[in-house]
């Protein structure tokens, strides 16, 4: 018996078990909130309100999934809110210019890819911290969007496009279906493919990953491109929902996305995170806002409650992790 077994003797809980357990606790919290609101208000469990809740949560959820990829590599993407506003302008502008709908959508998504690639370029080639490069684009993209629209908004007249966000499919809002459209491939990518493993490895120790043959630069490009593309996708959904392109929309959504991700168990130090966590996180936040509206809670209080809840949830998550070690 030497120091050999010292630490392994102390025992670390299997990681996957913890992740699933945490996911279940979050799901429990979400269901608990729903039950509570069901008792406290008459209007919560109405089809109308549930549809509304699913719509509200959907866009943050998609942003949070993209954001999670970046945070797992120990980075951060502050630009996503600005990308949403910017791409809503782009799609409105393209449609106004007579570009066919399918082409406008693809081009808008391509802008997302370009923005993400630019972030990764700044990080990998110019050596800028992720916080700085994405903070810079956060400011600039809003500026470019305002320049394009000359400070006003561009109306969208394409009815097929604007009807989409109001439509239901199998009784569920189409916006919520979009969460599933994003989440399923995201889950396969992060949890089942080798690229997901590479994201974790780069976030944990990029030098070790590199010496193990992982293409670290490519992995970082991938993470930021996915985040910006998710944001561009949300830009399309938002434009469809409000029927205009406006560069000042989605103010502060990046913080909502980061909060959802962190509530969902993502570690800002990297190498810890999942796809289901941020989804639950986003809908917990949406439920709190929705419930607070129904209960006529002052919207200033809503902000305070949201902030307090982030502290409590993440604190308990930390406690759980520590005791699991």
């Amino acid at each position, binding site marked *: 018996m030497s*120091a*050999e077994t*010292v*630490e*392994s003797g*102390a025992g*670390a809980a299997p990681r996957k078990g913890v992740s699933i357990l945490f996911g279940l606790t979050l799901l429990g919290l979400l269901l608990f909130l729903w039950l509570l609101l069901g008792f406290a208000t008459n209007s919560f469990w109405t089809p109308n309100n549930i549809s509304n809740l699913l719509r509200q949560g959907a866009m943050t959820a998609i942003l949070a999934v993209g954001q999670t990829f970046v945070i797992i590599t120990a980075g951060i993407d502050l630009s996503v809110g600005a990308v949403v506003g910017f791409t809503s302008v782009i799609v409105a502008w393209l449609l106004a210019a007579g570009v066919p709908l399918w082409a406008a959508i693809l081009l808008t998504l391509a802008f997302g890819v370009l923005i993400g690639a630019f972030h990764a370029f700044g990080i990998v080639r110019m050596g800028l911290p992720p916080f700085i490069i994405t903070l810079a684009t956060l400011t600039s993209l809003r500026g470019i969007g305002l320049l394009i629209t000359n400070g006003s908004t561009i109306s969208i007249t394409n009815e097929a496009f604007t009807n989409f966000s109001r439509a239901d499919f199998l009784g569920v809002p189409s916006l919520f279906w979009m969460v599933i459209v994003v989440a399923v491939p995201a889950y396969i990518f992060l949890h*089942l493919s080798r690229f997901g493993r590479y994201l974790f490895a780069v976030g944990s120790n990029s030098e*070790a990953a590199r010496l193990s*043959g992982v293409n670290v630069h490519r992995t970082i490009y991938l993470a930021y491109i996915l985040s910006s593309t998710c944001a561009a996708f949300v830009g399309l959904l938002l434009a469809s929902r409000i029927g205009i392109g406006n560069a000042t929309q989605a103010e502060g959504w990046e913080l909502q996305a980061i909060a959802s991700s962190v509530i969902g168990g993502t570690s800002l130090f990297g190498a810890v995170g999942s796809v289901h966590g941020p989804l639950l996180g986003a809908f917990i936040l949406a439920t709190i806002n929705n419930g607070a509206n129904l209960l006529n809670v002052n919207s200033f209080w809503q902000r305070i409650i949201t902030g307090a809840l982030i502290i409590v949830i993440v604190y308990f998550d930390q406690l759980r992790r520590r005791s699991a070690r």
Partner: protein
Amino acid sequence: MTDLQDARDVRTEGLQVATRHPVPKGEPILELRALQKKYGTVEALKPASLTFLSGEIHAIVGENGAGKSTLIKLLTGVIKRTSGEIFWCGKPVQLGTPHEAIERGINAVHQEVVLCAHLSVAANMFLGDEINRNGVMRKRAMTDAAQRVLDDLGFNLPAGAVLGSLTIGQQQLVATARAAMRGTQFLIFDEPTAYLTRQESAQLFRLIRRLQAEGVTIVYISHRMEEVFELADRVSVLRDGTHVGTRKIGETNEAELIALMINRTIEQIYHKEHFPAGAVIVETRNLSGPGFKDVSLTVRAGEIVGLYGLIGAGRSEFALGLYGRHRPTAGEIYWQGRKVDIASERVAMDLGIALAPESRRDQGLCLNLPIGLNINLPVFNRLTRGLTINGQQERENADRQIRDLKIKTPSRRVLASAMSGGNQQKIVIGKWLSHGAKLFIFDEPTVGVDVGTKAEIYRLFARLLEKGAGIILISSYLPEVYELSDRLHVFRRGQLVASHDYRAASHEEVLTQAIGV
């Protein structure tokens, strides 16, 4: 000497508590009675009783993992004991926090400097205990006082320089000067010369003797026998968490200490099998790159090529150059007779080169990820079917390495950070066994690894050679490279300065070439 005392006087009185209770020279100052430390069910330190006498230099020797660092952490209040008693100046004490240890006058100088690299030397020496007047720091006074202390100690270092601009060795001297100023009664050195040049070591030894003359009790932890015999009055030996004996230095010899430390003979540890050398796997011709120059060597199938030298001699840099991490600037690499350009790690891996790097922590492992993911990291491309990873193969591959290498873990899902040094090294090795290679580069494979695992690793070398692989073994521990290498190359300042066949040169000869006197 007076300047050192002056510097102490400049400072507040608070830290002088210890000096008010002097213990006469030769009387016990610190006594450990059945001191024990357990992590879970594992005893890192078995009940140990040790007495340190006032004013002595007491060396502690032992293999890695013998419990030396546990003992230091207990004495400096970094960790709490499980059971047993500690007596300081005859009175029982807790030593429950680092603050309490420092208050009592117990200080440690660590192998790796734990100071602020961005602050000046003077600011570091006074860190946490700055000279103030009316709440304003007196920067000039501190710089002057620090300079006097440094001059007095004969260190020839500028007090105003930024700490990070000094060499590691110089930083170590600053750390020592800092501890010396702090009213320290009991000073622990944890392998202080690991990164020092000979000159710096000599300066450090002078300082240690001087502190002893001033009445400070010194604990000196090292595995360098020559230093122990040069400095110490008494020496205690730890093995596998047990205190196996204390000797007066005049009444023991190196052979006895080594026998106590490892409890087996050198032949039993350094398992060496000779295989007929096969075809040349790799040859470098005048290879140069960042940190190494003009290196020409060959590795054949079935042989171990040892690279010996001091830390910073360019061995690891050469390995990283060969592996494509840093691109060589001149010279050629021939892989199995064909000229190759190794532009990236992937190229090296695809050729059949594996590298178990120098630092497990910084280069080898993703510590906060599971063992299984670490083992599979180089081979995920092979485990992928279509879009996704074949989960069954992934699990089987990890479990096979854990089983074959006897990695002591309940599951592949445990985080790598929960493993001890020896097991972590096995994870790094497992990674490359699952990938497979013709040429294995092991850079300091046994640092922080216990004796049992060391022997396992050496046996593994033989298994790899048997299968026709070649090995480059980089080590700063001479007996290891000396006993295992079929051909031993000595590096100094980035260059290959000498080469010897198996056991052809003496230890002294090799050491002299590495140091370059």
